[in-house]
C-alpha cells in the first residue's frame, strides 16, 4: 500500500467519514444443501443456528473482540448469547486491518452495521418467502424472524438455505440509536473467562509439535552490527541446535526449550561493530531539539495572525523524554518457513504489514505468507512494528537451510523489549502567548519540535508534517490568533507510535501553558478554559472539525463531578486539563496530596469525562479510560528512556517502573451522552493526565513542571 502507510490510510479513511471500502465477497451459496449463509466477510450463519462474527482487528486488551461484534449483532437483531467470534488473520477482505490510532470502532462502525443490516434484511426476505407473506409483516428479533399475525417464527439457522439464494442488498436501512438493544449496554467481554482461567492463548503461549525456540543477541549500540561471534560455548548447552547470524545486527541461538535458548544466548560470545552512534547520548539528542528550534516550521494550524497581536507576552518551553511501551507480554512470534510458503502466529497490530515485511525479508510473495493473529498481552503501539515477525521468519528459514524444517518461536526478554523498542519521540515545545486586557490570550503560538516517526521509517512526511500530527495536536481553544507549527528533527534512536502518540507531548505542553496563563491572569484555571470555549465555534484542523461546545461540555461535566467549586480537604490540591485527539474530547480533574513540596505527589482521585459520541460498551470504555490514566500517570511520573554511548540504559521494571497498585488512584469515568458517530477511546484519556497532575502540583507548591518525567525534574 504505497505511498500512504497503513496507519495514514486509517487516518484518511476516518477523516473522510465514509469508513473504508470493504471487500464484500461473493456469498457462499453452496449446492442444494448450503453449509452456511455468509452475505459478507464478517458474518457466517450455519443451519445449526451458530452465528459467527469475524473480528478483523487485533485484541490487545481494548475489547475489540467484544465491541466490534456488538455493532454487527445490533443491526442483525441477533441473540447476543448465540454469537461466536472468529479472529481474522491477514486478509484481503477487510481493507486495512491495522489496529491503532484508536480507530477500530471508527473504521468498522459503518461496515459492521451494514454487514449486520444486510444479513437481517435477507433473513427477513427469506422468512417472508418461506411463509408466503409480505416482508413488511415480518420482523427480526433476538435471532429469529417473526410473523406476529400468525405467531410463527424461524431461527436464523433455519433460514440459511433460503437466505443464500437471495441477492445481497446494497442499500440497507440502519437502526436509530434509540432502538439499540446491544450497542450501549454493559455487556460482559467474551474473552474474560479464558483469561482468568489461564486458558487464553497469547502469542508467547502458542506451541506446535517440533517447535524450536530462538533468542537473538542484538547489537546493543543503535545502528551497530555483528562483527563476529564464537558459538562454542552456546553449543554445549543441551538442546541448542543452531547458532547463526540473522541480518546484520543479530545472532540467533535456536534450542528445543526456552531456557536452553536463553542459556545458549547468555554464553554466546559476540563482538560488535558499534557503528556511527557509539558516542550518542541523551544530551546530544536534547541538543538536536534545541537546534531544531531555529529551523523553519511547517504550519499545522493557523487562525488570524499571531505575530500581530499586541499585549503582555508570556512564553515557556516544555520538554519530554523518550518513553517505551513496555507491554506485559514481551515480543514474540512463531513462524514456519517451508520453501514456497511461510505461516506465522503473530501477536500483532498489523497482520498485513507482517505479511508484507516477512515476504520481502524471506523472498516470497505476500500471498505465500499466512499470518494468524493471536491474543496480545498489551500492545500500546509496540506491536505496530513487524520486527518480531521478520526475525521469526528469518530464523525459521535459516534453520531450514541447515536441514531443520521446523516452526520457530522467537521470544524476547524484558531487557530485549526495553532496549530494542521503538520509542515515543522526545520533544521540545515552545509556547508563547499575548494576553489581552482581560488576561485572555489574544494570540498563542505552539511550536512542536520533534523527530518524525513516519519520517524515520521512510514514509512520506508531506510538507514537513508528520502524518500523525493531524490526529494528535489539534487546537483546543477558540483563540483569535492561534498558530500550531512543527519542526521535524532527526535522530538515530528508533521511534515508534506509543499510546496517544504525539498527543501526549502536545497536551502536556499546551495544557500546562494554559495553566500558566491563567495564573498570570489571576484567574481560576477551569473558568479560564471555559472562557476560551465560551463561544460555539468550529475549529477546522486538517480533516477534523473540533467543536468548542463539545470540549466545553466535557470540562463542565468534569468540574461538576469533581466538585470544582467546593472546598477541598486541608492539604488537597486540584488540577485540570482537557484535550482532543482521535476525534474524541476529554477532560480530567486530578486531586493530590503532597507531604512536602519535593515529595512525590499522591494522586487521590481522578475524574475523567469523555465525549466520544455513541458509547458502544460502557464497561469497556471505563476500562480504557481508567487504564489510559494509569498508563499516563506512569508516563508523567517516571517514564524516561535515556541513551548512553549509543545504548538504551533502562532494562527492566526496576529502572523503568510502571505504576503499581499503591500509586493508583480511584478514577471516576463519565461519558457525555451522545448519539454522534463513535470516535476513539483507547488513547484520548492518556494526554490530559500529565498536565492535570502538573497543574495540581503547581497548585500545591507554586512550582511549574516544564519537563517530564516529574520525578526527575
Amino acid at each position, binding site marked *: 500500500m504505497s505511498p500512504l502507510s497503513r496507519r495514514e490510510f486509517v487516518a484518511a479513511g476516518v477523516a473522510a467519514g465514509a469508513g473504508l471500502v470493504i471487500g464484500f465477497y461473493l456469498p457462499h451459496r453452496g449446492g442444494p444443501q448450503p453449509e452456511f449463509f455468509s452475505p459478507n466477510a464478517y458474518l457466517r450463519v450455519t443451519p445449526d443456528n451458530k452465528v459467527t462474527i469475524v473480528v478483523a482487528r487485533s485484541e490487545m486488551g481494548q475489547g475489540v473482540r467484544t465491541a466490534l461484534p456488538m455493532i454487527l449483532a445490533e443491526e442483525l437483531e441477533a441473540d447476543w448469547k448465540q454469537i461466536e467470534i472468529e479472529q481474522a488473520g491477514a486478509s484481503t477482505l477487510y481493507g486495512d486491518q491495522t489496529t491503532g490510532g484508536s480507530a477500530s470502532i471508527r473504521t468498522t462502525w459503518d461496515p459492521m452495521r451494514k454487514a449486520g443490516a444486510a444479513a437481517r434484511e435477507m433473513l427477513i426476505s427469506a422468512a417472508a418467502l418461506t411463509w408466503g407473506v409480505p416482508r413488511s409483516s415480518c420482523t427480526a428479533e433476538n435471532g429469529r424472524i417473526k410473523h406476529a399475525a400468525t405467531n410463527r417464527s424461524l431461527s436464523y439457522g433455519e433460514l440459511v438455505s433460503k437466505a443464500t439464494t437471495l441477492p445481497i442488498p446494497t442499500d440497507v436501512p440502519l437502526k436509530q440509536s434509540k432502538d439499540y438493544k446491544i450497542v450501549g449496554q454493559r455487556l460482559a467481554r467474551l474473552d*474474560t473467562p479464558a483469561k482468568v482461567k*489461564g486458558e487464553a492463548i497469547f502469542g508467547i503461549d502458542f506451541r506446535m509439535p517440533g517447535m524450536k525456540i530462538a533468542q537473538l543477541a542484538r547489537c546493543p549500540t543503535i545502528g551497530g552490527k555483528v562483527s563476529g561471534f564464537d558459538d562454542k560455548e552456546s553449543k554445549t548447552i543441551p538442546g541448542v541446535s543452531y547458532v547463526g547470524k540473522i541480518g546484520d545486527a543479530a545472532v540467533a541461538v535456536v534450542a528445543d526449550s526456552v531456557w536452553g535458548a536463553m542459556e545458549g544466548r547468555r554464553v554466546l560470545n559476540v563482538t560488535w561493530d558499534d557503528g556511527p552512534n557509539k558516542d550518542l547520548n541523551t544530551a546530544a539528542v536534547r541538543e538536536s531539539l534545541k537546534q531544531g528550534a531555529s529551523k523553519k516550521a511547517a504550519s499545522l494550524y493557523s487562525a488570524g495572525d499571531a505575530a500581530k497581536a499586541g499585549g503582555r507576552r508570556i512564553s515557556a518551553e516544555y520538554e519530554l523524554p523518550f518513553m517505551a511501551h513496555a*507491554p506485559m507480554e514481551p515480543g514474540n512470534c512463531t513462524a514456519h518457513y517451508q520453501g514456497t510458503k511461510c505461516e506465522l502466529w503473530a501477536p500483532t497490530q498489523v497482520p498485513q504489514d507482517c505479511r508484507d515485511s516477512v515476504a520481502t525479508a524471506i523472498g516470497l510473495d505476500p500471498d505465500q505468507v499466512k499470518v494468524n493473529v493471536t491474543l496480545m498481552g498489551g500492545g500500546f503501539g509496540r506491536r505496530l512494528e513487524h520486527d518480531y515477525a521478520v526475525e521469526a521468519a528469518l530464523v525459521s528459514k535459516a534453520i531450514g537451510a541447515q536441514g531443520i524444517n521446523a516452526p520457530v518461536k522467537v521470544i524476547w526478554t524484558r531487557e530485549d523489549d526495553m532496549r530494542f523498542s521503538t520509542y515515543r519521540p522526545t520533544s521540545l515545545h515552545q509556547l508563547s502567548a499575548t494576553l489581552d486586557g482581560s488576561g485572555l490570550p489574544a494570540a498563542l503560538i505552539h511550536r512542536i519540535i520533534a523527530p518524525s516517526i513516519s519520517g524515520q521509517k521512510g514514509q512520506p512526511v508531506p510538507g514537513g508534517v508528520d502524518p500523525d500530527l493531524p490526529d494528535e495536536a489539534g487546537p483546543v481553544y477558540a483563540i483569535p490568533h492561534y498558530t500550531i507549527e512543527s519542526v521535524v528533527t532527526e535522530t538515530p534512536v528508533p521511534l515508534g507510535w506509543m499510546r496517544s502518540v504525539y498527543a501526549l507531548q502536545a497536551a502536556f505542553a499546551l495544557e500546562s501553558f494554559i495553566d500558566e496563563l491563567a495564573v498570570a491572569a489571576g484567574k481560576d484555571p477551569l473558568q479560564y478554559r471555559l472562557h476560551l470555549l465560551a463561544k460555539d465555534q468550529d475549529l477546522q484542523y486538517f480533516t477534523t472539525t473540533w467543536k468548542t461546545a463539545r470540549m466545553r461540555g466535557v470540562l463542565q461535566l468534569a468540574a461538576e463531578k469533581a466538585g470544582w467549586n467546593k472546598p477541598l480537604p486541608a492539604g488537597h490540591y486540584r488540577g485540570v486539563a482537557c484535550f482532543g485527539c482521535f476525534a474524541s474530547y476529554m477532560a480530567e480533574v486530578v486531586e493530590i496530596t503532597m507531604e512536602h513540596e519535593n515529595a512525590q505527589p499522591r494522586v487521590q482521585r481522578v475524574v475523567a469525562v469523555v465525549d466520544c459520541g455513541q458509547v458502544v460498551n460502557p464497561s469497556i470504555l471505563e476500562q480504557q479510560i481508567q487504564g489510559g490514566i494509569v498508563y499516563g500517570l506512569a508516563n508523567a511520573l517516571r517514564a524516561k528512556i535515556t541513551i548512553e554511548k549509543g545504548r538504551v540504559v533502562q532494562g527492566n521494571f526496576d529502572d523503568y517502573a510502571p505504576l503499581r497498585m499503591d500509586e493508583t488512584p480511584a478514577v471516576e469515568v463519565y461519558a457525555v451522552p451522545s448519539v454522534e458517530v463513535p470516535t476513539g477511546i483507547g488513547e484520548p484519556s492518556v494526554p490530559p493526565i500529565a498536565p492535570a497532575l502538573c497543574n495540581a502540583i503547581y497548585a500545591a507548591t507554586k512550582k511549574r513542571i516544564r519537563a517530564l518525567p516529574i520525578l526527575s525534574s
Partner: protein
Amino acid sequence: MAEITLRVNGSERKVSVSGETPLLWVLRDTLELAGTKFGCGAGLCGACTVHVEGNPIRSCSTPVSQVAGKNVTTIEGLAASNGLAAGQLHILQAAWIAEEVPQCGYCQTGQIMSAAALLSKTPNPTDEQITSAMNGNLCRCGTYERIRKAIHRAAGAIERPREIAKIDQEKRGNGGAR
C-alpha cells in the same frame, strides 16, 4: 540434566531438566501449563506467580531444584486445590469475571494467584492489606481498581460458606481466545 520430581496441581510430575532451570519454564515449556506468564524474568512484575506449599512465589526466579518434592499450584489447578470440581471456578476467578477485571489479561493469572494467597491467610482484607499483597504484581493495562473490587467481592462471598458464584461457562467461554 537431572531427574526432578514435583507435585504440580496435585499430580506427581517427573521432569528431566537442569536444576537451575527456572520453575516458570518447567511449567510452561515442559509441563505445558501456559497459564503462568513470563513478564520480566527478574521477580519484578509478578506475572509468573504460583504457589509453593500455599505461598506465592515468583516462578521466573525460582530454580526448579528448590521446589523438588514440593506442592506447586498454578492457575490451572487453583480451583481444584480449593476442593472444587473440574469446571468450577475459584471464588476469585468468579469475582474477576463479575467485576470484568481483565483487559489484555496477560498479568491476570499472576494477579489471581497473589490474591488467592492473600485470601487464604486474610479472608477479609482491608484496602491496605490488599495493596500490600498485590503491589508486586504489575498491570500495564491499569486494572488495579477493578482488581481491588474483585478481591473485596470474593472476600465477601467467602463469608458465605462454600458458596461459589455460578458463572455461565457456555461454549463461547473462551471468547475465541484460541
